[in-house]
C-alpha cells in the first residue's frame, strides 16, 4: 500500500505495467496558487499587462502542458486525455491567482500527474507573464485536490477516510490539514520502513480514554501490517521526547514516537 510502485525489487526505476488494470473513467483535479503583490493582481484584472492577457495565456499553457506530461515525468504513461480544463481565478485575499486543473480520461492509469503538470505550468506562465513587474511572486500549494476512478477508488485531499494508504482519522503530517485535537506520531528506523510512514496524525477522538497502550491498540487494529509491526516486545515509545510506559496518559498536541531498540555509538 505505502510502497513506491515506480521502483522494482532492486530499487531501480521502472514504468509500472498497467496492461492488466481495468479501463475506468478517471478524473483528477490539482491546484496551485501564485501569490503576488496586490498591484500586480490589479494589473492582471484590469488587463493592463505589457505581455497581454495573463489568465488566458496561462490557461492555454496549462492545457498544452497536460498533454506533454509523459515527456516531462520519466515514468509517466502517455495518455489519451479526453478533457483538460484549467481555471484561473484572481483572489484579492491571497492576493494572487488560484489555479485549478482537471484532467479526464477513460484509461488504465490515473491522471493526477497531468493535472499537477497543468496547474504547475499555468503557475509558471503567470510568473513569466508578470515577472517584469513583480519578481517576488511565490508559487505554492501545488497539490492533488481529488481523484476519481481506478483501483483505489475515489480520493480527496480533505477527506482522509477515502485514503486507503492512511488510517481513519489519521493524516500524514506533511499535509497542511492539521488538527489541534490530535496526536503527532513519529516512527523511526526499521519500524518506519516496515510501516512505510515516518509521521502521522491521529485524532484524539479516536481514543475514548487516551493512553499510550490504547493508541497502540488503535493502530494495531488498522491492519495486519500495523498489528505485526507494533507487536514487537522490543518496541520503544516516547511521549514528548521522553521514554514512556504504556500506561502514560496522552493529551492533544502530544508528540508520540515509536522506535526499535537504539543502536548508536
Amino acid at each position, binding site marked *: 500500500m505505502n510502497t513506491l510502485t515506480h521502483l522494482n525489487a532492486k530499487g531501480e526505476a521502472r514504468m509500472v505495467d498497467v496492461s492488466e488494470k481495468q479501463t475506468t473513467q478517471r478524473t483528477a483535479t490539482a491546484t496551485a496558487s501564485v501569490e503576488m503583490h496586490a498591484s500586480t493582481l490589479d494589473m492582471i484584472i484590469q488587463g493592463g499587462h505589457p505581455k497581454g492577457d495573463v489568465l488566458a495565456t496561462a490557461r492555454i499553457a496549462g492545457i498544452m502542458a497536460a498533454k506533454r506530461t509523459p515527456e516531462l515525468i520519466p515514468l509517466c504513461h502517455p495518455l489519451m486525455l479526453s478533457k483538460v480544463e484549467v481555471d484561473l481565478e484572481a483572489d484579492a485575499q491571497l492576493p494572487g491567482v488560484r489555479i485549478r486543473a482537471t484532467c479526464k480520461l477513460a484509461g488504465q492509469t490515473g491522471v493526477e500527474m497531468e493535472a499537477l503538470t497543468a496547474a504547475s505550468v499555468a503557475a509558471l506562465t503567470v510568473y513569466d507573464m508578470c515577472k517584469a513587474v513583480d519578481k517576488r511572486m511565490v508559487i505554492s500549494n501545488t497539490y492533488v485536490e481529488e481523484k476519481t476512478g481506478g483501483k483505489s477508488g475515489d480520493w480527496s485531499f480533505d477527506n482522509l477516510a477515502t485514503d486507503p494508504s492512511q488510517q481513519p482519522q489519521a493524516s500524514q503530517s506533511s499535509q497542511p490539514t492539521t488538527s489541534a485535537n490530535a496526536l503527532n506520531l513519529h516512527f*523511526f528506523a526499521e519500524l518506519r*520502513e516496515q510501516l512505510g510512514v515516518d509521521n502521522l496524525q491521529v485524532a484524539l477522538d479516536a481514543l475514548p480514554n487516551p493512553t499510550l497502550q490504547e493508541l497502540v491498540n488503535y493502530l494495531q487494529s488498522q491492519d495486519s501490517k500495523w498489528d505485526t509491526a507494533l507487536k514487537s516486545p522490543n518496541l520503544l515509545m516516547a511521549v514528548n521526547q521522553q521514554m514512556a510506559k504504556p500506561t502514560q496518559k496522552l493529551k492533544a498536541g502530544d508528540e508520540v514516537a515509536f522506535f526499535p531498540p537504539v543502536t548508536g555509538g
Partner: protein
Amino acid sequence: MDSCFIRVQQESFDTGKEVQALASQRTDIGAVVSFTGYVRDFNEKPEVTALTLEHYPGMTEQALEQIVHDAEERWALKGTRIIHRIGRMEPGDPIVLVVTASAHRQDAFDACNFIMDFLKTRAPFWKKEHTASGDYWVSARTSDTQAAERWENN
C-alpha cells in the same frame, strides 16, 4: 553545567582538536579521557561497505544531556564533550566522541565509560549497515544493555 557540550552532526570531527578545545586555557583540569568510536568493516555480517545513522532530532540531544547530567551527579567532572555523527559513513570514519575532564583521572575514566554505556542504550540513534549482501538494521546487543545495567548497583 555550561561546560557540557553536545553536538549531533553530519560532518566528521578531529578528536585531538576537541580534546584541546576542552582542556586548553584551563588549569583546574588534571585529567582528560576521550573515547572515539569508528565504523568497522565487519559487524553482524562481513564486508560492511558503509553505514547510515538515523536519529530522533530533539530527543537525541535531550537524552544525551540527561546522561551527562547523571554522570555529573556521580563524578566530579570539570567538563564533557559529546559528538555523534549522523548520515552516511564508511569504514574507518569516526562516528562518536566522548571527552570527559576532571581533576583526578578516575572520575574522567569512569564518567567516559558510563556516558558511552548509556549513549549506546538510551540515546535514540539507529544504524543501518550496507554490506555486499544487502542492507540491514543493526540489532541491539544484550552486552550493551548489561554494560549499562552494571552502573545501577555501584
